[in-house]
């Protein structure tokens, strides 16, 4: 259990299809991520990784198929058109999302950004939680600076802090090491390892092998919207992630 009492939650994709006009971005996506599992998505640009993550985040509605979030306690929260509003809100609360864009406001300071999202997400002791996260991401000394004055790597740190504010039980990451320096990547890998150990379910898209990809216990490779490989075998996981762009 996380400190907010959200039980470990998995993700179940059932025949998910997503079409943009005539273009099929995802086809027959069917797999399940167990609560606490750390899964890496690999594939070329345009293979459907971002679309899959945005569907899992609840930002994009699939053209067809079902997305559910079975918890370790047996409860299932849905995020499809058939889910009730209360279920959708519960599913939303359990997810944290780091997108390719930073999803923070340039005209607000790092602290103001985090406080805003903490209040919207009803984070208990918001000010203390924000202060702790600012220390963790190494931006406490720059907390009063506008985000637009930050480098890409610093913005990425704010973005990661925003996604972790409400201690989600599912973390979705779209190329999370974008802009981070080697120290930043090491910090992120350590943070994700702690979250994995605490039972957080992680689904992340990656390009190439790094300290972060070492955390993955399963790798799924997409090609033109289809799953072409799905493995939990250590050597195969490394192979898929190493040759992700091949």
């Amino acid at each position, binding site marked *: 259990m996380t400190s907010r009492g959200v039980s470990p939650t998995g993700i179940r994709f059932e025949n998910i299809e997503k079409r943009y006009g005539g273009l099929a971005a995802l086809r027959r996506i069917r797999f399940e991520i167990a609560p606490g599992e750390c899964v890496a998505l690999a594939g070329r640009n345009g293979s459907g990784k971002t679309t899959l993550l945005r569907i899992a985040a609840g930002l994009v509605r699939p053209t067809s198929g079902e997305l559910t979030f079975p918890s370790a306690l047996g409860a299932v929260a849905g995020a499809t058109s058939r889910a009730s509003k209360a279920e959708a809100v519960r599913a939303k609360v359990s997810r944290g999302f780091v997108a390719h864009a930073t999803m923070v406001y*340039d005209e607000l300071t790092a602290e103001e950004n985090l406080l805003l999202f903490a209040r919207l997400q009803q984070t208990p002791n918001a000010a203390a939680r924000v202060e702790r996260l600012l220390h963790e991401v190494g931006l406490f000394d720059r907390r009063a600076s506008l985000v637009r004055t930050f480098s890409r790597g610093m913005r990425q740190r704010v973005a990661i802090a925003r996604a972790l504010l409400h201690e989600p039980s599912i973390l979705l990451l779209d190329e999370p090491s974008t802009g981070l320096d080697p120290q930043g990547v090491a910090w992120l890998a350590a943070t994700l390892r702690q979250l994995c150990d605490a039972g957080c379910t992680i689904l992340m898209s990656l390009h190439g092998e790094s300290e972060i990809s070492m955390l993955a216990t399963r790798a799924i490779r997409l090609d033109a919207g289809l799953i072409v490989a799905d493995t939990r075998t250590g050597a195969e996981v490394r192979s898929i992630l190493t040759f992700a762009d091949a």
Partner: protein
Amino acid sequence: MSLLSSTTALLGKELRTEFRSRELLTTTVVFILMVIVLFSFTFDPTYNESRRFGPGLLWLAFLFAASLMLQPCFLREQNNDTLSALRLSVSDPFAIFLAKLVANTLFLLFTEVLMLPVFAILYNVPVLRVLGQLLLVFFLGSLGVSIAGTALSAISAQARMRELLLPLLLLPLLTPVLVSSTEVTIGLLEASPYVEWKGIGFLVAFDVVFLTLLWLLGEYLLEE
């Protein structure tokens, strides 16, 4: 989190970002000022002439300025994909609209109140004796413009040719608001001022109907 507390937090963000960048307010004030000043050169601003042309001119300037002001309302949420972050964070997406339309109404009202003395001086129109009634019609008209404009801004932000789309959708939709607001303002600027209650009633009805529609359909307008 209640709708009210989400809206308050988001409204604080809207006001803070605007007062730091001053993009919307500066554009709106300069645009209205230019229209009012330029038109004052085109006819003799005697009292009778001003009563005939002034209110319509004033509301047209407000409307065009509003279409400029509303354009970036959702567009700037796309820069860093912050709209997605808001959608993931709020339990009721209507809070996003409510905060934006309250902020837009406040910005419009602020601009209108700032421009009223300029209009009164350049067009030789006494406004002090009907200031309360004028502020009421400014509020109802601006609220209508903001409600419809905020909804259409959310739609147009995701479309191609978005810069053209918003005015094309907004101006015809707001024609009834323009006509009613102008009629009420004409009545207030008469030698013997009177309140055109039919116009006030129409503005209230427009605001209520469109606010209800936004509440019912807002969630769908935010979807990708």
